[in-house]
């Protein structure tokens, strides 16, 4: 995955609450066996509305999306993150995110930024003026040309992975020995737990 340190650019002022992953990418787009090309179906329903923010030339190629509460709720489909990435979105700012979607976003190099509603409202205003917003992961700040400065929290492990573009699977495979000894003690104490499909 692409490392993410600092993202500077225009922001799409969506603002909508409870944007579910069916909105981000409808099910008919999930039949693919690839991660590529899903931007074509991203936010399809919203983009069918005339004057929608996604197709407004002012926000074309904007790397930041600003949304309302509970962004990415619903289905666990990682296709939602792939679709956003394909649109060029690297940061989403919202008052809250669904647990599953924010995890999927981070694993694809997209930074979910949680800010209080009033900060989000202010950033929506700035974005609607077509001004640039800067998100800096190292210092955990969001800034605007008007000297607004908001700081956000992020789990240190997620930050580390995003800054360095790390492959989590590789990191965990390096802990194979610890996993092996956990498995050995379970097999001894509760063998039925380790049988799985072989119990049948």
């Amino acid at each position, binding site marked *: 995955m692409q490392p993410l340190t600092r993202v500077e650019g225009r922001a799409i002022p969506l603002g909508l609450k409870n944007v579910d992953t069916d909105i981000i990418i409808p099910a008919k787009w999930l039949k693919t066996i690839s*991660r590529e090309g899903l931007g074509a179906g991203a936010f399809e*329903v919203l983009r069918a509305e005339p004057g929608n923010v996604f197709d407004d030339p002012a926000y074309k190629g904007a790397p930041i999306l600003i949304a309302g509460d509970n962004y990415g709720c*619903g289905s*666990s489909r990682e296709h939602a993150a792939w679709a956003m990435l394909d649109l060029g979105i690297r940061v989403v700012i919202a008052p809250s995110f669904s647990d599953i979607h924010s995890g999927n976003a981070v*694993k694809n190099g997209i930074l979910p930024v949680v800010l209080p509603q009033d900060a989000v409202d202010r950033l929506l205003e700035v974005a609607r003026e077509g001004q640039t917003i800067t998100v800096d992961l190292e210092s955990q700040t969001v800034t605007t040309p008007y000297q607004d400065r908001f700081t956000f929290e992020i*789990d240190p*492990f997620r930050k580390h992975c995003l800054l360095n573009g790390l492959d989590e699977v590789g990191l965990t495979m390096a802990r194979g020995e610890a996993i092996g000894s956990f498995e050995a003690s379970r097999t001894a104490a509760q063998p*039925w737990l380790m049988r*799985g*499909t072989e119990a049948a």
Partner: protein
Amino acid sequence: MASRPRTLYEKIWDAHVVETRDDGTALIYIDRHLVHEVTSPQAFEALKVAGRPVRRPELTLAVPDHNLPTTPRLDAAGKPVPIVDVESAAQLAALEVNAPAFGIRYIPATAKEQGIVHVVGPEQGFSLPGTTIVCGDSHTACHGGLGALAFGIGTSEVEHVLATQTLLLQQSRPMEVRVDGDIGPGISAKDLILHIIGRIGAAGGSGYVIEYRGAVFQRMTVEERLTVCNMSIEAGARAGLIAPDDITFAYLKGRPMAPKGAEWDAAVAYWRTLHTDEGAVFAKSVTINAADVEPSVTWGTSPEDVVAIGGRVPSPEDFADEAKRVAAQKSLDYMGLTPGMAMTDVSIENVFIGSCTNSRIEDLRAAAAILKGRRKADNVRWAIVVPGSGLVKAMAEEEGLDRIFTEAGFEWREPGCSACLGMNPDKVPPGERCASTSNRNFVGRQGPGARTHLVSPAMAAAAAVTGRLADVRALV
């Protein structure tokens, strides 16, 4: 470790910590992994590219469900019917190849054990109390009905579990939803969970794992508990669970993949320790008055948009916060409803009985009990019943339920996710309404422009008979 009183969630979590990292994340062991065709191809592909094997193939079970058409799978000569949609066929074929190539047990579309992953897991005894269960599907929360810590994951995490049998996780906070007392007659587990989501909101459980506690849940059958836990994700909680008890053990005993003999006894002894200790602290508690629960329906496009069947379509002005007012107006426009309209005046053109929420035998029995000797109303153009698995289907046919459904004007289908999500041929046409026993009323969920009203199986049957949303208690 056991000195401090712990919640059920904390007990299961503690039993699965392989190691804790300095930054507070924990490497958690995953006992059971369910795989379906939609969220796995990219994970298998990544393993192939990196030359990584599956660490514990026997702890993963693969079954196709999302993409499968629910029309007959074998032709008159007993040969598999080809899948017309080229992309769906390719995705299904990928699973059929990937699973055995990585040593994973695969249940083919034509096997009687095939079904929706969340129906198959408990039915086969693959899902067990106290285990960690994951699947690339948010409704994995379902298995919490057996007292498992079960949650949905993305495709990168599917790859992570296949390669390492673990996940790197931050612990959630424990939340309690308590319902004591009695729920009225004719009111189901689905009505209750819809009512709960309406109360706590679509983000009310975000960051939490919900434990459902109180007499109402203790009296429930396992299938009812699965329905409740299934929809935890619609309240934003990644998982929901109910402590296992004798009802759970009786359900699991003798299932193909459940422990046997002395191991069964050892397992039950362990499972009996899986309950929240006296004095354990929940980060959030919500108490629901059982007497307030009515047959529930949704009016909008979020599962929190719940109203009792005797209620009316709300007005955006009814909501305190501005974002919700905007969302409510958008929902009403999409749903084609006007504020103040009685829910029982909403007419219905489609009825769907199925999905991982409500496609088990008890669900089909509840719907059939209402439909027996009755027929769907003329304005209901399309009514289908999609059993959750081949085994549910066979059991229903043995009980004669299929005939009750077909005589009532329903189509009797093959198992799969069907019209719960608009990805296989079962879709609700644009602008039409569906009384649906599924779990999501999102915009376009059942097909582009489709309008979904979430209801229980008995309420779906009542809607079919009357041609509009109706209080099932008038038909009992």
